[in-house]
């Protein structure tokens, strides 16, 4: 009788459950627990040490009235919008060019992708040097005789974010190209043949047939670019350290400054919660589209 009884549910698959403990701990304690902890503490007035002394939305009011935060948000918006458009544009164009059955495709691909292997710190420092107003591009062009030439994004608060953008695009667009190229290679060869039989020029085929077919690839690329944009931190620290003044601050840097330098923990928590909210705003529609897409197909 006993032997025929079902074994205790808890001990079925015991090894698999034991082996999954690190994953479960990570998921529940670090990801869910940590995030909840931070969100909860963003409603307190913790300064040097976390305390559960709730002050409602005070931290958020402070945050949104802080000019440093507003600059950070504005910078991230400009960087984000430009970075999305340029990455998609450059990534797709390069992928389309490489997909035209060209010679040396491997060499070109290697060149476009190598910056992606480099860290943001290395990227930031390299471009800091190239954009150096005395010795970099500006200096070189002036040496050539164009005395009035001005190109000093890293020293001009109005355009410093574009200086960072140049470096960011350099580092990441090759990655988008790889994704786009994989998408283009996934397109049925017969589609191209069909458009040739019908006499549709290549550029028109790209716009009217191929790009609509690659919608999922574009969405994936956009999500990747977007999640990269929100993390933007190392590049700024290395290239400008937020300067000149506060003109190239970004939210991720704001959070870390307040948590680890300014000893104003709750302010950092509030800022990081805002980052989380913006990720949710981006991610939920995407997840909805993905989910909806699966239901239809």
């Amino acid at each position, binding site marked *: 009788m006993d032997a025929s009884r079902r074994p205790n549910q808890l001990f079925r698959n015991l090894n698999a459950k034991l*082996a*999954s403990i690190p994953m479960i701990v990570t998921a529940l304690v670090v*990801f869910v627990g940590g995030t909840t902890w931070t969100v909860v503490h963003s409603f307190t007035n913790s300064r040097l040490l976390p305390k559960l002394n709730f002050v409602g939305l005070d931290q958020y009011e402070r945050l949104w009235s802080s000019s440093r935060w507003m600059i950070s948000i504005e910078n991230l918006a400009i960087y984000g919008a430009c970075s999305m458009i340029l990455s998609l544009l450059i990534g797709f164009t390069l992928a389309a060019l490489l997909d035209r059955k060209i010679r040396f495709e491997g060499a070109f691909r290697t060149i476009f*992708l190598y910056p992606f292997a*480099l860290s943001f710190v290395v990227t930031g420092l390299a471009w800091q040097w190239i954009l150096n107003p005395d010795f970099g591009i500006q200096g070189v062009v002036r040496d050539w005789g164009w005395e009035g030439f001005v190109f000093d994004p890293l020293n001009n608060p109005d355009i410093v974010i574009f200086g960072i953008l140049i470096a960011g695009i350099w580092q990441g667009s090759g990655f988008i190209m790889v994704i786009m190229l994989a998408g283009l290679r996934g397109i049925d060869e017969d589609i191209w043949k069909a458009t040739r039989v019908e006499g549709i020029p290549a550029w028109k085929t790209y716009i009217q047939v191929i790009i609509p077919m690659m919608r999922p690839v574009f969405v994936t690329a956009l999500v990747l670019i977007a999640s990269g944009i929100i993390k933007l931190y190392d590049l700024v620290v290395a290239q400008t350290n937020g300067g000149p003044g506060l003109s190239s601050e970004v939210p991720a840097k704001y959070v870390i400054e307040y948590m680890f330098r300014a000893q104003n*923990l709750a302010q950092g*928590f509030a*800022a990081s919660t805002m980052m989380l909210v913006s990720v949710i705003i981006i991610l939920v529609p995407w997840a909805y589209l993905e989910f909806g897409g699966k239901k239809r197909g």
Partner: protein
Amino acid sequence: MADMTANAPVLEGPSGPKPRRRFSRRNIFLYGTLIVVSMYYLLPLYVMVVTSLKGMPEIRLGNIFSPPMEITYEPWVKAWAEACTGINCDGLSRGFMNSVQILVPSVVLSIAIASVNGYALANWRFKGSEVFFTILIIGAFIPYQTMLYPIVIMLREIGLMGSIWGLVLVHTVFGMPILTLLFRNYFTSIPEELFKAARVDGAGFWGIYLRIMVPMSLPIFVVAMILQVTGIWNDFLFGVIYTKPETYPMTVQLNNIVNSVQGIKEYNVNMAATLLTGLVPLIIYFVSGKLFVRGIAAGAVKG
């Protein structure tokens, strides 16, 4: 074959391959664009290399694009052994050693844990396993900033804050979502019959993992390694937060050397230091080639 091979008379007019001009407008546009764009991508590498081989007087006089008139390796030596961070002056070598000590256990531990996770998720599903996995994947999208401080507290509690092992743990945790996904998808693609046959033969959870799954999955382990080595080597954020100056990884130390406000700026040493830091991932990139692409593509295309 009978009457078919009899040569029909070829008529006048076009015959054979369509003549193509080598320098057609299409080709000039195509290769022209690619070459110009390639220059943008290659420019920083070129500038870094030439700058690191020049002496300071030449840098102050000349322009950043001109090749060095007199090649000197002194900046490289200085960057490696003498450059100052404001705290100490023993160059990048200390950061390099720290990075290696962080890298090796992080890569081993994160891959070991994630591959077992992926294996359990692919072959030994239990009630709730998919839920935890979903949370893990969603976690990959949460900005690190919301988890930074709770982890500081956890590391303090277990006494690893500021140590290399603390950072190893952090890398293991944050590498887990993508690696678990990678392994889960790979193990799912292995025919289930193989797994069933092994179970019929009496192999258990660990036996199947070690003797069937791991030997069959070496390519994906290499992909995971490439992903982790570049990712961990290039990390700055976790390094700066969870270690102290003696245990700073190379990226943090590089930033401290180059952006240190003290003394005169030695651009050639800076560029040598930057190149030194970028060397490890660059070598991996150029050696691994297609596998690198496969790794980042696997990381990109979710589900």
